[in-house]
């Protein structure tokens, strides 16, 4: 049936709107099909359903799509008897209504594509719908209680003659069309991305505003300290005024940035539920097809993500859920025999922490049978018997991601072709993400996807450990506490903290990052309760700096694979703040603790010199800690012990000889071997260094020639002999 050419421009918008309404109707139907709903809730659902169907009918009619209007009208008729007497909707009726919605959308899309002319007669479509409907008495017998004829009437309504003339366009509700009539722009993703970059730059400008304001305040304070109060009064007053204006301008810029970001987010993102809701229908249809029962619960469906990412993820999620229904869940009888509910539970959990997205797809089915995986992988030539013999359980589990792997012996519509999980992994990796699987026999399987997302800013808690500032995604931080002796349990190898009736392991961030040796938390030290993936730890830091709203950018390839970091954000002075991965922080640290044999402290105010010395000493088997000044080195030596100190001679504030003098004064460090490193290569400089108490002296030239490690070993050996 052709659409009036004048209205054709509106039909595409109608199809989009209709898809959203149809999705809502589908969700309501699936809800109505379930047991245990109160009569009030049922009544509300029926009313809402009726309203949505009426909207579809009216909107279609107002655009002259009579066929669609007729289908919607039929569906309304089918609903009417049940609406009058709210009850659980019989499954056959749900089937018919869902089928009717499919038909509606197929035709709506055809109209939108300009293929309305080629559509078969609407009467034929309705006849098809009628043909698919079970006999009314059968539908009633399957779903409705004895004596209740509402379900039978609903099924009969579908099979009744075509509807009476549809409402006139004028009478139809134009609400769904109101927005589709509103014309929009087509913009490329590149244009939007570049706009986002500009907003990010503006955010950085705002941070700089704040910093300039603070600098001006410092200038005013400094001027006041000079003692020339009267002479500088006017200048100070002017500067203070400028600082105030700057702050106000900064706040206004902040508001603009927020508004721009919100607007861009609305344009570029959509809630995850837009891809997860349609999966409810898929799970229902598939489980019915396989004779199983399943219910999908979604946690975090309100999280909004980049539309492009969602489109790319949809296929992977469909695969995972189909896999869970087909391979994971047992038949209802088997489940009951195993003491489980006959209806299998599928859970999709979505969580965003900073610029990382965590997606988890779990089932409470039989779990992965590792012996079977081994056997099938060998049979299918995925691995050889020798190779499987060398694999541990995790590696065997990972075989399910290999191309050509499937434990199905028969090829069905759902699975068995060995294409699926390898495609899922490929699509996740194409998004620079990763996928992992965990499974417990008899209890179920969990697939965990971690993906980077780079849209907009997110709240970050900035903490300090030694001189290093570290960012933590605020979503991962549950609480902040100060260490109290009565809440701590100190063991030989690690400390625990009592928190809400649980004992949480205490993780020293400095030690975890390799910046210092492991130390138990001191009284009053800040402890952050960090959670990720259901695990929690108490994270010990030196100070909590504060929270910031920051744009987290991906790391360059050279450091992208360091598991501790998920990205970096720009702070107000332009320096980068590294953002720590919460899942890395809560991961088991027991097995990753390194038993240090020889420990060196490198003291140098040059970042590159520290990096080079560290590289050489680590290559020689040392655990290396770094300090950027003599004062910091002394702080480190208060709590840590080292076998050797490598110290730059020419440092600001406290040079190498002054540091040695301080070390020799203290009993604990009086005999600590110290090697001085200097750019001065003269005999006089060497003599001066050794006279100051250094055990060795190396010029940078000698370091460049590879002498450092040999000198360190030599000095340690000499000190050892003397001792």
């Amino acid at each position, binding site marked *: 049936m052709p659409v009036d050419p004048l209205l054709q421009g509106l039909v595409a918008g109608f199809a989009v709107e209709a898809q959203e309404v149809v999705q809502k109707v589908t969700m309501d139907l699936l809800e109505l099909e379930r047991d245990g709903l109160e009569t009030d809730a049922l009544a509300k659902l029926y009313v809402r359903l009726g309203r949505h169907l009426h909207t579809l009918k009216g909107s279609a009619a107002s655009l002259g799509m009579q066929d669609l209007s007729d289908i919607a009208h039929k569906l309304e008729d089918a609903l009417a008897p049940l609406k009058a007497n709210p009850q659980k909707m019989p499954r056959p009726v749900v089937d018919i209504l869902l089928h009717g919605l499919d038909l509606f959308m197929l035709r709506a899309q055809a109209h939108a594509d300009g293929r309305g002319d080629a559509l078969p007669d609407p009467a034929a479509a309705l006849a098809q719908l009628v043909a698919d409907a079970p006999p009314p008495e059968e539908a009633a017998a399957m779903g409705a209680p004895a004596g209740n004829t509402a379900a039978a009437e609903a099924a009969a309504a579908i099979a009744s003659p075509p509807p009476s003339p549809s409402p006139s366009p004028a009478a139809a509700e134009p609400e769904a069309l109101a927005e589709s009539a509103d014309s929009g722009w087509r913009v490329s993703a590149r244009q939007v991305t570049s706009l986002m970059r500009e907003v990010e730059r503006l955010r950085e400008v705002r941070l700089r505003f704040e910093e300039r304001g603070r600098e001006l305040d410092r200038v005013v304070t400094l001027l006041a300290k000079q003692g020339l109060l009267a002479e500088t009064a006017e200048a100070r007053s002017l500067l203070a005024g400028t600082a105030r204006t700057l702050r106000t301008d900064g706040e206004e810029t902040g508001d603009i940035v927020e508004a721009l970001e919100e607007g861009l987010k609305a344009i570029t993102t959509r809630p995850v539920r837009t891809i997860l809701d349609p999966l409810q229908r898929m799970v229902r249809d598939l489980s019915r097809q396989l004779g199983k029962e399943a219910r999908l619960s979604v946690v975090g469906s309100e999280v909004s993500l980049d539309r492009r990412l969602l489109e790319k993820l949809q296929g992977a999620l469909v695969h995972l859920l189909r896999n869970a229904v087909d391979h994971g869940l047992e038949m209802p009888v088997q489940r009951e025999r195993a003491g489980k509910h006959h209806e299998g539970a599928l859970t999709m959990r979505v969580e965003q922490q900073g610029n990382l997205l965590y997606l988890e797809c779990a089932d409470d089915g039989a779990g992965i049978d590792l012996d079977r995986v081994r056997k099938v992988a060998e049979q299918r030539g995925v691995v050889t018997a020798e190779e499987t013999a060398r694999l541990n359980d995790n590696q065997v589990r990972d075989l399910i991601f290999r191309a050509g792997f499937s434990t199905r012996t028969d090829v069905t519509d759902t699975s068995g072709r060995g294409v699926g999980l390898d495609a899922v992994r490929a699509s996740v990796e194409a998004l620079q993400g990763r996928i992992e699987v965990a499974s417990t026999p008899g209890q179920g399987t969990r697939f965990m996807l971690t993906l980077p997302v780079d849209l907009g800013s997110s709240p970050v808690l900035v903490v300090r450990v030694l001189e290093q500032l570290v960012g933590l995604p605020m979503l991962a931080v549950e609480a902040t506490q100060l260490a109290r002796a009565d809440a701590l349990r100190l063991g030989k190898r690690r400390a625990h903290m009592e928190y809400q009736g649980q004992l949480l392991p205490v993780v020293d961030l400095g030690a975890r*990052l390799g910046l210092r040796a492991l130390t138990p938390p001191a009284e009053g030290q800040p402890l952050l309760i960090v959670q990720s993936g259901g695990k929690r730890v108490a994270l010990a830091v030196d100070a909590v700096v504060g929270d910031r709203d920051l744009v987290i950018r991906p790391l360059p390839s*050279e450091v992208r694979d*360091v598991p501790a970091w998920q990205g970096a954000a720009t702070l107000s002075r332009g320096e980068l*703040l590294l953002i720590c991965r919460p899942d890395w922080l809560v991961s088991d640290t027991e097995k990753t603790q390194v038993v240090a044999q020889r420990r060196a402290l490198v003291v140098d105010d040059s970042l*590159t*010199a520290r*990096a080079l010395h560290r590289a050489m000493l680590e290559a020689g088997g040392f655990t290396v800690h770094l300090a950027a000044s003599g004062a910091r080195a002394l702080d480190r030596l208060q709590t840590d012990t080292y076998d050797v100190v490598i110290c730059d001679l020419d440092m600001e504030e406290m040079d190498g000889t002054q540091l040695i003098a301080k070390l020799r004064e203290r009993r604990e460090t009086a005999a600590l071997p110290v090697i001085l490193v200097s750019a001065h290569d003269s005999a006089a400089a060497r003599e001066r260094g050794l006279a100051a108490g250094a055990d060795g002296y190396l010029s940078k030239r000698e370091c460049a020639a590879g002498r450092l490690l040999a000198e360190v070993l030599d000095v340690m050996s000499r000190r050892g002999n003397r001792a």
Partner: protein
Amino acid sequence: MKVTPRTMEEAQETEARELLERRAARLREQGETAVEEAVHWIAEFPLGEERYALSLETLRAALPLKMVSPVPLSAPHVVGVLRFQGQVLAALSLASLLGGHGWRQDPAVLLVVDRGDGELCALDCEAIPRPTTLPMSAVEAARVRAEGPVMEVFTQDRQLIHLIDLKRLFASRGTGGRNAR
């Protein structure tokens, strides 16, 4: 007969014309006697006791070595990360990348270079490099001979320069992560 200039201006004008004529003659002479050799522009700098260089076309910027944030648990050759024109770049120790042990002085400069795969990174350096040239033929010959990322090329005055091929250098390296502790 030599014409004697009458005023100071005329004298200066004559002098300038003679200078230009001499220069033109010199250039004509060069063109007749020598065919200019193709050259490869490099950015040359000292590393330890030796002279190293990068192709000038790979150099994007030279920055003062500051505002670099260290990355704990990264590979030893990673000095840290920094922000450059809105991007996050890795600052790498060139001495460490090349298997050396250090500089004569603490590096004060970062060279932002194209790694050869379209990505940028920053390399530390003692001083701002000097732009100069190498004979193209010598570079080509060295490229054929060399298997690793560093080619030994002799300048016209027989000085040895180690020319770094960044594409080869980064292709031969893995990722920058150490085992987490």
